[in-house]
Structures are given as C-alpha cells and as structure tokens.
C-alpha cells in the first residue's frame, strides 16, 4: 500500500437515464484508517454512488478526488492503479477460472513484474490459508462464503489503499458475514480507507467510525457511530415511513 489518502465526494450528481438523476448532490469524505458507512433506504442511491466512485458511471456534475487528485472521470479499469478497489454487490468471481487463477488476476496491475506478482500471491495465500487447498478448483464450484473469500483475496493482490464495498453480507451465512465484517475492521486497522454501503444497518454501524445517511439521492443526516447506535429503530422506521 502506497500512501493513505482521503476520498472526497463533492456535490455529486449521477444517473443512468438522461433527465433522471439518481444522485442529486451527495457530499461525503472517507478517511484513511476509518470505516465510513453509507446507509439509506432502498433507492436512496447508495449503490449508484459506489458505482460512480468506481468509475462505472460518469457523473453529471460534482467531483470525486483521492488525496487531492481529481478522479471524477477516471475509467473503471484505471481505479486499481490509483489504489481504489471495488467489491461489487453479489458474486463477482470468475466462475470458470480456478481459485488460483482468480486470485492471480487480482495482480493484473503487477503483470509486468513477475517477482512482485509472485510475492503478492504468497502474501495473500499466507493471509488466507484456507484458500490454499482450493487453489485448483473452479471458483464457481465453491460455496458463497468461500467465493467471497476468493473475492477478498483477489482484491488484496493489488494492495489497495481504498476499498469500496457494496453490501458485503448479502447471501452469506451469519457466521461468514461476521467474519467478513471482522476482516473489514482488519483492513481499517492496516490504515486503509473503507467506504461501506450496506443494508445490514446494525452490522455496518457496529464497525463504523463515521456514518452518512442518504435519502432520495441527497445527504440526510451524518455523524459518529455513537450518534447512531442508540437510535437505530427510529431511523429505520422513518425510512419505512411508519
């Protein structure tokens, strides 16, 4: 990891269909060594924001910057060079490739340097020893939890300084989901910047350092974890309109 950096989003507008923006002025900051959580009801634009940050969606206006460098219009495949890794919602392994091939591809930015690629592979397999015996199996043949582990291992190959994570626990068994959140805390303790979008409000707030709430594509409330811990029920009820 080279140099921690703060991710800043300022007055972001973005959408898929012209004339119908989903994000209508989102401003957030995610700092190194912190877990920044973005919550909000369905359709608030959380995933859209993450996709815009990861370069899959070109913003209509506003800006995105990392450590002072403007990355607003950086194409998706250039983000990992800047140290930004994205874990999309749902399965994202390459099912027909083996576990080893999946993880090795995470080192695509290192492809010119065989020694570093090898070192990164050794480092990642040392960190997740349970993946070693699965190395030659097609990723698609693994359980949901194991595939998630492959995705995390693949993501770590490039040693990112920023992690954009979308709904990490969807479809996972409760104990695997718990491990997933523990791993996110470990990444935070290594000084990485974590931006987490989640529907699992309780789990997300438990590891959050700072929380933003979006509603209808705009900032709603924000604050430290302590400001949210007590009053979750009220917030969720308000989203549901009851």
């Amino acid at each position, binding site marked *: 990891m080279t140099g921690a950096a703060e991710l800043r989003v300022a007055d972001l507008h973005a959408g898929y269909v012209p004339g119908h923006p989903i994000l209508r002025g989102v401003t957030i900051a995610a700092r190194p060594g912190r877990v920044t959580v973005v919550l909000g009801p369905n359709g608030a634009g959380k995933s859209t924001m993450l996709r815009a940050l990861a370069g899959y969606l070109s913003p209509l206006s506003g800006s995105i910057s990392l450590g002072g460098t403007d990355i607003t219009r950086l194409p998706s*495949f250039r983000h990992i*060079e800047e140290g930004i890794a994205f874990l999309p919602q749902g399965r994202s*392994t390459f099912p027909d490739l083996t576990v080893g091939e*999946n993880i090795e*591809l995470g080192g*695509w930015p290192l492809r010119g340097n065989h020694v570093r690629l090898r070192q990164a592979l050794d480092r990642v397999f040392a960190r997740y020893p349970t993946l070693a015996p699965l190395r030659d199996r097609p990723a698609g043949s693994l359980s949901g939890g194991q595939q998630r582990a492959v995705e995390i291992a693949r993501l770590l190959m490039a040693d990112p300084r920023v992690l954009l994570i979308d709904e990490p626990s969807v479809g996972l068994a409760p104990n695997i989901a718990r491990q997933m959140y523990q791993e996110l805390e470990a990444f935070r303790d290594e000084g990485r910047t974590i931006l987490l979008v989640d529907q699992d409000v309780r789990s997300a707030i438990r590891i959050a350092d700072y929380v933003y709430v979006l509603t209808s594509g705009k900032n709603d409330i924000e604050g430290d974890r302590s400001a949210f811990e007590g009053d979750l029920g009220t917030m969720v009820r308000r989203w549901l309109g009851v």
Partner: protein
Amino acid sequence: MVSTALQIVADGLLLGMIYAVVGLGLSLLLGIMGIINVAHSAFIMLGAFFTLGMLEALHVDPIFSFALAVPLFFAVGALVFRLIIVRMERAEQNQGLVAMFGLMVLIENVGTIFWTTNTRVVTVAYSNVQLKLGLVSVPAVRVIAGALAAALIAAFWLFLNRSLIGRAIRAMAQNQDAAAAIGINVTRLSLVMFGLGIASAGAAGVVIAMVFPFAPQTQIEWLSWAFLIVILGGFGRVENTLAAGLLTGLIQTIATALMPFDYVYLLLYVALASVLVLRREGLRGVVRRTI
C-alpha cells in the same frame, strides 16, 4: 480391412482438423464476446484468396502465407472492431448481427468483382504427393494443412489457458464489471480477442485454399460448416471446438465409406438436430450481449 479402417480414420481426422480450425474463431467470438460473427466465413474466403494471390503474384508457399495471414488478419480484425463493433456495443440488440451480415455480403460481392465467381485451386509442388505412413496413405497437402490447423488450435488453447492475458480475456467474458475492477481494460482486450477471431478465420482460409477448391460465393458453405461445429461443440472453448471438428470429420469419412454420398449430410444434420434437442441450449445461452 484394418488398413481400410485406419485409412478412413486418418482421412477423417485430417478433415476434422480443417473443420475445427474453420469453427474456431466463430466459437471463440460467440463464447467469449457474445458476438455472432456471420462475416466469419467471408474472412475465411479472403484468407483463401490471400493464399492464391501470394502464390500467383509472389510465389509465396501457402505455409508462409499461413504465418503471414495471422498478423495480417489480426490487423483487419482490429480495424473492424474499431469501425463496427465498438459502435454496435452501444446500439440496439440485433443491430450487431445485421451489421456483420452486411459486412459478409459486402466482402463476398467485392470478392466477386475482383475475382469473379470462377472456382480456383491452389496448386503447389506437393499438391499431388501421397505420404505412406504404415498402412495408410494420405495426401501430403492434407497432412501439412492438418498440422498447420493443429498448431493454430494449440496456440489458441495455450494462449487462453496458460497466459495471464488469455485468462484475463476469459475473466472478462465471465464478469465484465469485476474484470474492470481489477484493472482489466475491457475495450482493449476485446479488440485483441476480436482480432484473434478474425486472424483464425484468415488462417483457416489458407488451410482451406490448400485443400479445397474455392470461389467468393463458397464462403457461405463454410459458414454453415462453422456453425455446425459451434453447435456440436458449444462455444468459447478451444478443446470442445477441436473435438467437434474431429467428430464431424470422422462422421463424414465413415459415413462416406458406408453409404451413398447423399446420405452423409443427412447423417450430419441428424447429429446436429440431436445435439440441439438433447442440450436444448442452442445459441440461447449466448444472447447475453448479442452483437
């Protein structure tokens, strides 16, 4: 008896290698990129006339033309990708298919203007040489053509399965967003893959020119052969395309030995229909991003 059987198998395998190389590019572009490249056979035809032109004008042996065809047709494929495919990715569903069909018609007609509809053959020093290998006797030119096809198929398999770029191309086929997230430039690798698909078509054209008579309009027959191989073997996997090609070659030579010629095609199309019925997959699995 044994020698007759061996002869049939040898002929079938050599013919099958040619079928496999004819189906290769169509299968890969369909399976990896979701592109039904109906202009595939038009590029095969161009490869055949390239072979003829190199031989007649510059006295270049088809074996060298084969080596030249790969980079040349890769460049042609890259150009087609930039001019047509990139635009089609943003267009409505079936427009890509229509565009490739248009390209096929264009190439065939321009071919007819240049080369007329006369049937051509490529004749070289080894065209009439028979090789005796134990009990079987095979034309040298078919052995050379089969070997070139085998080399190309092996190279494609190694590239897609053993190189990091090849794996990245397969990864891109399986999950484009995830591929971009790990830094893979999907547009660039798509260009590489499309170029390789057309390169294999050009190279297949050289192989065909060595073995069969050809004319601009015969390309459509090669398209149906290529589709037969792709449907039998499925798409996107080099080894399956090879197996389908060899099987088709064997069915054809065995059937030719046992029954009147007319029934051979019937048998092949029964095999095709059976596969479609049994697998029920057809071309549907691919119409993910049909262009």
